[in-house]
C-alpha cells in the first residue's frame, strides 16, 4: 500500500523521461536531441513512420514529438493515429512547419494533444512538453475514475447515421454502411 494514499494523484506531476522524436531533417533532429538531452530527457530519434512505430514499441516513450511531413508514404497524421490507437494516453506533440488550420484540425481529429509550428522557441517547447504530458495524465486519471471503460461510445457519421460501439474501439476507423465514408470513433467525449 502506498504511504501517500491521502494525496490526490491528480496533483502529482506527469513524469516524462523518454521522448521519441519523429523528425526526418537531420539538423533539426540533432538540435532537438541536444536541447532535450540538456534537460535530462532520454531521446530517441526516428526518421520516418516505420522507424517511429518500431521505436515506439521497443522504447515505450513517455511522450512523442512528431513532424507531419515524413519521407515515405505515411504522414505524421497517420503515425499519430496509429500511435494513439496503440496507446490512447500517449502524449503526442506535433512540431511542424505547416501553419494551415486544416492541418491543426486534422491533427486534433487523429488525437494529437498539442500543435507547435516551426520555427519554434526552445523554451516554449520545453514548457509545452510538460504541459502536454500533464494534460494527458489528468485526462487518463479522469478516465480511470469515471468508469468510462464500460460505457459504449455514441457518435454519428456526417450522413447522420448513428453508431454505438464498445469503448475499446476508440480511435479506430470504420466504414459507414449508410454512405460508405470512413468514420473515426471519437477518442474523447
Amino acid at each position: 500500500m502506498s504511504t501517500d494514499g491521502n494525496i490526490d494523484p491528480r496533483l502529482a506531476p506527469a513524469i516524462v523521461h523518454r521522448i521519441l522524436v519523429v523528425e526526418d531533417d537531420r539538423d533539426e533532429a540533432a538540435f532537438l536531441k541536444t536541447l532535450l538531452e540538456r534537460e535530462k530527457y532520454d531521446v530517441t530519434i526516428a526518421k520516418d513512420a516505420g522507424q517511429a512505430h518500431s521505436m515506439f514499441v521497443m522504447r515505450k516513450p513517455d511522450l512523442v514529438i512528431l513532424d507531419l511531413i515524413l519521407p515515405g508514404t505515411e504522414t505524421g497524421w497517420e503515425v499519430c493515429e496509429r500511435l494513439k490507437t496503440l496507446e490512447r494516453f500517449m502524449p503526442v506533440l506535433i512540431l511542424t512547419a505547416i501553419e494551415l488550420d486544416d492541418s491543426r484540425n486534422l491533427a486534433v481529429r487523429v488525437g494529437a494533444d498539442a500543435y507547435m509550428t516551426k520555427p519554434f522557441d526552445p523554451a516554449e517547447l520545453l514548457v509545452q512538453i510538460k504541459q502536454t504530458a500533464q494534460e494527458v495524465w489528468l485526462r487518463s486519471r479522469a478516465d480511470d475514475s469515471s468508469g468510462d471503460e464500460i460505457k459504449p461510445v455514441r457518435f454519428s457519421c456526417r450522413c447522420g447515421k448513428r453508431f454505438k460501439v464498445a469503448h475499446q474501439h476508440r480511435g479506430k476507423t470504420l466504414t459507414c454502411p449508410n454512405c460508405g465514408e470512413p468514420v473515426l470513433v471519437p477518442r474523447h467525449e
Partner: protein
Amino acid sequence: MHALIVNTGKHKGKRIELPDKPIIIGRDETSFIRMTSTEVSRQHCSLTPTEKGLLVRDLGSQNGTIVNSVKIETETLLRPGDKLQIGPINFELAGAPPAKPVAGLDDDIFGWLSESDTATDIPNASDTTIVKAAQLAPPPPEPKPKFKTIADEARDIIRRHRESLEEKT
C-alpha cells in the same frame, strides 16, 4: 407572437406557435418543445420573445445551440428568417404572425405527432410539442467530405503547404 418552422425531416414546413413568454427547448419533459434526441440536452436553450425577435440563450448544452450556422456563446437575437439548429433539427423563425388562431393549432400539432407517437410519449399534448429525432431525416447535409481517408487529406494539406511556400518565395 412568434412561430418556429421545422426545416428538416418528415415534418419539414410544420409551424410551431410560441407563447408570449419565455420557453425552454430540451429533452426534459417540462420543455415547451421536447426533443428526444440524445444530441439535445435536458434543458438545451431558452427562447424569450421580444419585439424584434426571439432572444436565444444556450443553457449550457453539451452540443451547443447554433444560430445561422454559428454556435452561440451569448444571448443572440433570432430575427424572422434566421435559422436555429438544436441537435439534429433545424428551425427557422417565421417571418409573419400566424394567420390561424392558436387554439386550432394544438390539434394540428397533435395530429402530425400522433402519426407514430403513442399517447404515453405525450405527457401534456396541449402545451408540449414532441419532436422525435428518429422520425426526422438527418440534419441538413454538411459540406461533403472531400477525402476518403486521413492519408488523402494529409497529402492535400502537404500539397497546399508546399504551394504556399512557393508563393512566398
